[in-house]
């Protein structure tokens, strides 16, 4: 269970995140949506204690400020939007980095650590590329490697910043479905910032729409993904449709009709 209380992040005078409070139930998925600059990344980084902030972030009632870096890494795994990928590192070595919070200071990884990583490489379809260097991977493969590394931390809270932007349509769904499966299996608490509103609506239990650092809308997808709310905050007209499965699809409404090519 992740609890945010009045979290504020300032860069100079302007607050990137202005007093956000929210409680994410254990095992649920919170989607962060909002226009560029709304504070989604800053909020995630504050939760991972990677940026100065005021306010309280607590996991299962433990204030993260009181935790050591190591303890924090065992509780919160963070998938950055632009990860740093050392070109000469192999995929296996990279994913094994995820076990760092569990490896003793003067020790090396154990067989258990390697088994965990091998399993994740399998599930994320990277087993064949395990010994390849990161520089040889495609964008999509790199994103899966980053996800594998975060999952290797086996932390109860998973924070993801645009985790699927480089993946193709099919792999995007596969990656999110995997996260969802693991969420159910391990009771993970997932918070993800996503630009794709439809996918956000399909996978998240609850959506937070951020605007200028504050919560502009909060609720289940059906309540937040409405034409009024989206149009006023994203500044563009949208279609909001419901599928037969009960999913919500958000599509942009084109400005002008395009002449049909016969």
């Amino acid at each position: 269970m992740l609890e945010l209380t009045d979290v504020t992040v300032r860069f100079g005078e302007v607050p990137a995140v202005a007093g956000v409070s929210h409680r994410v139930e254990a095992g649920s998925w919170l989607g962060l949506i909002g226009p560029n600059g709304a504070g989604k990344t800053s909020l995630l980084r504050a939760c991972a204690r990677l940026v100065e902030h005021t306010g309280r972030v607590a996991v299962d009632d433990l204030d993260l400020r009181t935790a050591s870096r190591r303890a924090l890494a065992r509780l919160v795994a963070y998938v950055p939007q632009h990860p740093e990928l050392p070109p000469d590192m192999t995929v296996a070595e990279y994913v094994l980095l995820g076990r760092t919070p569990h490896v003793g200071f003067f020790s090396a990884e154990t067989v258990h650590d390697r088994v965990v990583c091998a399993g994740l490489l399998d599930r994320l379809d990277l087993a064949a590329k395990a010994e390849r260097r990161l520089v040889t991977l495609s964008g999509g493969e790199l994103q899966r490697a980053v996800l594998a590394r975060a999952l290797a931390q086996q932390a109860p809270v998973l924070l993801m910043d645009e985790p699927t932007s480089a993946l193709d349509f099919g792999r995007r769904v596969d990656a999110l479905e995997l996260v969802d499966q693991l969420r159910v299996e391990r009771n993970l608490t997932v918070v993800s910032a996503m630009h794709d509103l439809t996918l956000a609506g399909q996978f998240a239990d609850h959506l937070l729409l951020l605007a200028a650092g504050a919560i502009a809308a909060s609720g289940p997808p059906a309540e937040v993904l409405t034409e009024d709310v989206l149009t006023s905050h994203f500044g563009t007209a949208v279609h909001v449709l419901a599928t037969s499965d009960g999913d919500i699809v958000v599509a942009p409404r084109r400005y002008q009709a395009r002449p049909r090519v016969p």
Partner: protein
Amino acid sequence: MTESGAGTGAAATGLPAQVLGHRRATGPLLVATGVLLGAAALGVSIGPADLPLSEVARVLASHLPFVHLHVNPTDDAIVWQVRFPRVVLGAMVGAMLSGGGAAYQGVFRNPLADPYLLGVAAGAGLGATVAIVHGTGTHLLLPLSAFIGAALAVALTYALGAGGSRQSSTGAIVLAGVAVAALFTSVQTFLLQRHSQSLEEVYTWILGRLSSATWGDVGLMAPYALVSAVVLLLHRRLLDVLRVGEDEAESLGVRAERVRIVVVVAATLGTASAVAVSGLIGFIGIIVPHTVRLAAGGSYRRVLPVSMVAGGAFLILADVVARTLQSPAEVPIGVVTAFVGAPFFLFVLRSRRAQQGVR
């Protein structure tokens, strides 16, 4: 610290062995050790006095405990008092400069970082200049002065450069190092201008040499080298984690700032002690780690230990070249390493550009 991996783990879980991560360091390490021993043998056997190999072996054996062999006292002096300490010191200095270079490359995540980055060279140079200029007769004061100069320079660099936001810290430290080096060098130049008779002696010192190596020098350097080596080797796994950047390393539970300080202090100790007894031998901190990376991959679990051993071997061999090229005169060893190093530098730059171009 074992590198568990392939073997039993794979069999037990039924997973393919290659998925289970890191290549062992033992292979490259054995090769490097072999080269080191070969270089040492060469270093001890070669010299202006033509001694047969068997005689050299006898002299060395006679110094083993419980071995009683009669050897010619002159031969003993040459091998045991002149050549052997020189080889041992060469190995230690080479190890410290290479290990320090690899460590700095890891901490600053810059492949062109060398152990002199934070002003060690300029600080030691100033310390040595002060000692030489003031005509100190004692053999001990020169290394001490150089060591203190180096340590002061790094401390000043760190004080000026560290602090501030996480992102700017590393860059700021490097820039502070440039500024401190310039400052110390200018003071050194000023001193030399006023005491121009010391110019040659200072310059000789700067070029670096192992020619006056004694067991005393070895003893002087040994404790620092040992501490430095142990601390650096203990942190090699953490240096690997730092390869993804400080931010992500922090999110993985590593306190990047603390690792950086510890590694910088340890590497500086080793480098300063090496410089104190042998002057400023350049390029090793870049040549050796990069060559090791080309051969054994970029992981610091391999690069750090293998660089130390290979660095020792490299310097011994460079020293052999330095003293045989114009025998019985000696070419300053810094010239030999620069001769090999400068083209190597360019090679590294080109290959990195090519690599980035391909991406």
